[in-house]
């Protein structure tokens, strides 16, 4: 039986791991190479590395840093932030990434997803979908781009469906309303997306208590949970998280 995945996320800025609230007010959380090696050894199921400054500063993700992190990471490793073309994905895959996540470039031109999937397989093409509640409509969310700085009119569920058709093999879904608050994932959003597509959905944004992880895997129908603050600041270890989930009937790989 396929297990649910626990994924620590390294938000990287100026070669350091940082974490903010609602994508702002960043504080330092450590060295990406050290943290990556630690999570890999502690039994995390995957690692995500997001260059959070890449799009807004038009700066490419730091390839050398990805190479260094990858040398000590023996679990699937996803890299994202400012990726604009299939060529850049090729470069990152050669540098040690296993998957790449794309947001802004795919919204501008969904053919980037198609071209990347044709060249590298859809299993390494992750759609990063940053969503925010639509203030005008209940249970509707809109897509945000450029590291959360720009809101679009695109409906999040419709975009997820379209991205799957275009070649995305997975969706990394971040609730911008919940991100960094540690107040729990957006269950309604996660479930709405997970029930609309046939590819795995990674829930992100709002991880706080272990119950919040359980809730989004169970009621939210997510295939995986991504969390940053609770692991970086030592609130819970990967092992504790997995023991809790296993005790509540969620299939996990023992840490």
């Amino acid at each position, binding site marked *: 039986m*396929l297990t649910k995945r626990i994924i620590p996320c390294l938000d990287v800025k100026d070669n350091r791991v940082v974490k903010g609230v609602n994508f702002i007010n960043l504080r330092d959380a450590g060295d990406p190479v050290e943290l990556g090696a630690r999570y890999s050894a502690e039994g995390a199921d995957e690692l995500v590395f997001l260059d959070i400054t890449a799009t807004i500063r038009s700066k490419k993700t730091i390839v050398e840093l990805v190479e260094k992190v990858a040398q000590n990471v023996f679990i699937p490793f996803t890299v994202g932030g400012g990726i604009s073309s299939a060529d850049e994905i090729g470069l990152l895959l050669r540098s040690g990434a296993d998957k790449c996540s794309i947001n802004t470039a795919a919204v501008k031109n969904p053919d980037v997803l198609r071209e990347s999937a044709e060249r590298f397989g859809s299993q390494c093409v992750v759609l990063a979908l940053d969503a925010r509640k639509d203030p005008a409509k209940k249970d509707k969310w809109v897509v945000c781009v450029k590291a959360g700085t720009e809101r679009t009119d695109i409906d999040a569920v419709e975009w997820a469906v379209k991205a799957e058709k275009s070649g995305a093999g997975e969706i990394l879904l971040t609730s911008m309303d919940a991100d960094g608050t540690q107040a729990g994932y957006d269950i309604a959003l996660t479930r709405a997306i997970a029930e609309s597509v046939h590819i*795995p959905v990674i829930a992100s944004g709002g991880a706080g208590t272990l119950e919040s992880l359980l809730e989004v895997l169970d009621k939210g129908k997510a*295939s995986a949970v991504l969390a940053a603050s609770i692991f970086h600041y030592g609130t819970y270890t990967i092992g504790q998280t997995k023991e809790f989930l296993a005790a509540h009937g969620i299939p996990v790989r023992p840490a």
Partner: protein
Amino acid sequence: MLVIIDYGVGNVRSVTNAFRHIGADIAVSCKPEEIQKAAGLILPGVGASGYAMQKVAPLADLICQQACSGKPLLGICLGYQILFDESHEMGTHKCLGLIGGKVIPIPPGRTVPHMGWNFVEPAIGMRLFEGMEQGKHFAFANSFYAEVEDAAAKVATTEYEGITLTAAVEKGNIFGMQFHPEKSGADGLNMLRNFVRICGVK
């Protein structure tokens, strides 16, 4: 020395990192003379079969000749899928034919790709699973799988949303894994250590 065959299709870096981490004497090459001298060969790969066969074509005869002469060969993910007779990924593509069988899509109605960690149960006596005979979790990322039609092959399997999928195969000196040992934590590294030992090198 072991040689990772670099034929231009994906994850060479990850596989190299993992072998280096366990202290294996490893080189990355596409040169026939280095492939001939190697104590064991690794055929990696990520992507689509048709493209991979196109890229591996100049080395296909050499790889088959080396494997048939008894040199240990390990195919990983796409490198595993092209060990079989043919692949039905976007058309029909003739593959290396080292193991009888074909690569077909995971039947519809399931989440595809098969993405994440799944429990793998080995057949009795599979050398790669030495020390892991009760089975372990390994990391998968695939939309196609191999249907093995080879009486000489031992097969490890995994259960996925109501069907049994082939996860790994062994036929004499030819080994293949659908999952990614280089990305399967400590158990994956142990599996690579087993392969290094089978090759008879440090």
